[in-house]
């Protein structure tokens, strides 16, 4: 038995991290054009700040915030705005986006550096984060500055950095921690300072020993920061599971981490916070894992936000014969793509290509045999079996009584289901039919 911290239940899928875990982060080629969606985050979409024909530079704001829960977007290259229209995004939605054609020069606007970034005040840090357009980079893309501004009645005492990276295949956070541990820890310190919190934790699944070692080496000089090896178990990187594993606190049903005094940030977000505070660099690129048996040369790449997936895949040698599924994100919660002409956005942690033999059809699922496997693995302690049956039969209101809205669609139930039922689909269907 592992002594590492963890939560109750969960699953053990095949991780396949070895495909990309040894690949150092490489710089992706300058994209020919970028498509920057104005809504890459949770909250109000940004408002275009440029017009068709305008010349823009790298780091220039091209979309401004329209509310408190919102985030600006920046150009990640220099070039000319050639279109502002709806384009498909990796979530499957059509989103108003700004298309910029590169002039090949990659000229940047001047960035405001802060060599003494640790002397910035809490409000200054939050302002920097907001202006840099930083959002949660683990996938949910919630504006970070909002997460760092909890209401007064919710005192925060703990910041947890999420380096669990529990999604199979993905290694972006792993490489970031192994190669830039100092930047990640400095980012954590900035986040802690912005919240006035003394206690910092970094949770990393045990399948990343080099990352744990690198982070420990850096964190050992910091009094209030602890690195936690976590049991290799999905969904260890879910906010609520991580808080449970490290602090033993259970976020109340329908509550938020701040209800138990915790703020969880992805390690990629911490890295971006550091880059923004130290170098004045907005969030215009991120580490993306390109992996899977369907890709010729798996890699971890620093990719400019807005680069089309097709261009990224091309740089990794393209798809192999028999590649059938391209996923934005990980295999458990990522989105399957119908076109490769969708941009890498702030929340894109990976591009995963699965081959024919990894593909399992949902077409011929059978009735629930009530084996209870899903109940045994649901990290939220739900009864997915019952929920799926209620949803299947249209009893959506009843599904609510079985705590439908506590489901965060991690897919553990679908993973173990012997009847191969599309459990997540059933949950989403029910959620779309009733109000929380």
């Amino acid at each position, binding site marked *: 038995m592992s002594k590492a911290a963890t939560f*109750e239940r969960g699953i053990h*899928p*095949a991780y396949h991290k070895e495909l990309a875990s040894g690949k150092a982060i490489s710089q992706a080629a300058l994209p020919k054009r970028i498509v920057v969606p104005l809504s890459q985050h949770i909250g109000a979409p940004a408002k275009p700040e440029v017009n068709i024909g305008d010349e823009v530079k790298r780091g220039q704001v091209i979309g401004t915030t329209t509310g408190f829960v919102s985030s600006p977007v920046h150009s990640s290259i220099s070039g000319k705005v050639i279109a502002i229209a709806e384009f498909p995004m990796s979530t*499957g939605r059509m989103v108003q986006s700004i298309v910029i054609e590169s002039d090949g020069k990659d000229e940047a606007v001047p960035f405001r550096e802060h060599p003494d970034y640790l002397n910035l005040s809490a409000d200054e840090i939050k302002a920097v984060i907001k202006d840099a357009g930083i959002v949660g980079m683990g996938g949910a893309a919630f504006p970070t500055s909002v997460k760092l501004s909890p209401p007064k009645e919710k005192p925060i005492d703990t910041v947890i950095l999420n380096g669990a990276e529990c999604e*199979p295949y993905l290694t972006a956070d792993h490489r970031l921690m192994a190669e830039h541990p100092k930047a990640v820890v400095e980012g954590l310190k900035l986040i802690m300072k912005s919240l006035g919190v003394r206690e910092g934790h970094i949770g990393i699944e045990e399948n990343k020993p080099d990352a744990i070692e690198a982070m420990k080496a850096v964190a050992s000089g910091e009094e209030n920061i602890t690195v936690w090896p976590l049991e290799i178990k999905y969904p260890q990187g879910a906010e609520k599971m991580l808080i*449970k594993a490290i602090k033993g606190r*259970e*976020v*109340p*049903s329908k509550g938020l981490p701040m209800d138990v005094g915790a703020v969880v940030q992805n390690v990629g977000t911490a890295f971006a916070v550091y880059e923004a505070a130290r170098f004045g660099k907005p969030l215009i690129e991120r580490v993306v894992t390109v992996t899977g048996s369907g890709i010729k040369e798996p890699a971890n790449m620093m990719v400019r936000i807005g680069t089309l997936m*097709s261009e990224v895949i*091309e740089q990794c040698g*393209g*798809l192999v014969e028999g590649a*059938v*599924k*391209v*996923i934005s994100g990980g*295999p*458990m*919660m*990522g*989105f*399957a793509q*119908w*076109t*490769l*002409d969708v941009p890498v956005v702030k929340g894109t942690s990976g591009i*995963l290509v*699965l081959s024919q033999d990894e*593909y*399992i*059809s949902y077409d011929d699922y*059978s*009735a*629930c*045999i*009530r*084996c*209870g496997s899903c*109940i*045994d693995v649901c*990290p*939220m302690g*739900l*009864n997915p079996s*019952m929920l799926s049956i209620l949803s299947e039969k249209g009893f959506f209101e009843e599904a609510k009584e079985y*705590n439908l809205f*506590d489901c965060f*669609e991690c897919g553990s139930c*679908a*993973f*173990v*289901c*012997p*009847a*191969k039922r*599309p459990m*997540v*689909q059933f949950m989403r269907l029910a959620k779309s039919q009733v109000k929380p």
Partner: protein
Amino acid sequence: MATEAKAHELIVSVSPHVRGKETVARIMWTVNLSLLPAFIMSVWYFGPLAAYVTGLCIATAVLAEHIYQTSLKKKTTIGDGSAFLTGLLLGLNLPPSVPFFIPIIGSLIAVIIAKLIFGGLGYNIFNPAFIGRAFLLISFPKLLTTWSEPTAQFVALDAKTTATPLGILKEEGIARLVEVFGDKTELYMSLLVGHRAGSLGETSVIALLIGAALLLYRGYITWHIPFSFIATVGVMAWALGGDSGLFTGDPLIHLFSGGLMLGAFFMATDYVTCPSVRKGQIIFGIGCGAITMLIRLKGGFPEGVMFAVLLMNCFAPLIDRGVKSELFGAVRKKKEPKT
């Protein structure tokens, strides 16, 4: 671009995009396999007749499901092993020397009435094999309670009839039961290996435990139902089963005889007809055990496992409603002090 040529072939489906290896068929065939030791022992003690009865049950069950489904233009599901399992379980629950129409009628009732009419695997309320057997027991009481004496070595085509240990216990008392087997140690040993009269697959406790160990090891069943079922029977037999007052009963006789082991490990644990929340399964198991002992001690039949399981099957949906899984971060309702 090579990627563009591929794009139209991309499959889009809902997450998760990887799934575990477990399938309904794999589970069902493993359960079938886990009953192999019990089946072998049934042939050992009751001869080729045992294989004939069980085989006829299985063949009828599988054929009935196939014909029913194809004639309704549905996809046949005999490959999932559940019809085979229903036939096998029914066979192992029958006396050795029943005429040919008994397995056939029982299997038809089990598969068609108890399972397919409800919508097939997953929708049935009652354990199909037990419904089949209950129908037979009520319709043909004499045939279903005529027991052959076990011999050994795969012979015994023409065995003498005798009574089951529970039958002797009920009619003539424990002293007579011990006398029939020699002494208490002999009695326990016979019950453990299965050298006794009874339904085909229920007699050998050891063979059943070997199969149960496989299922527990694979995680296909958990301890909750079998343990609570068996423990309840043991405690009630000890507390109420004695002739000389409370807590004088012999729990081992009750544990090792009748269909308890077969019922607790292989029948009560049927996914579809038991509660799916583990805590609820404990209630279910206790209920099964209590009804079993009520029938054995006070009822008209010497054995009560079948009716106990069927009765508790009715309550499974109710238990699942009442005993819910433990929600992460459940907010306990506190009484807020008035200010």
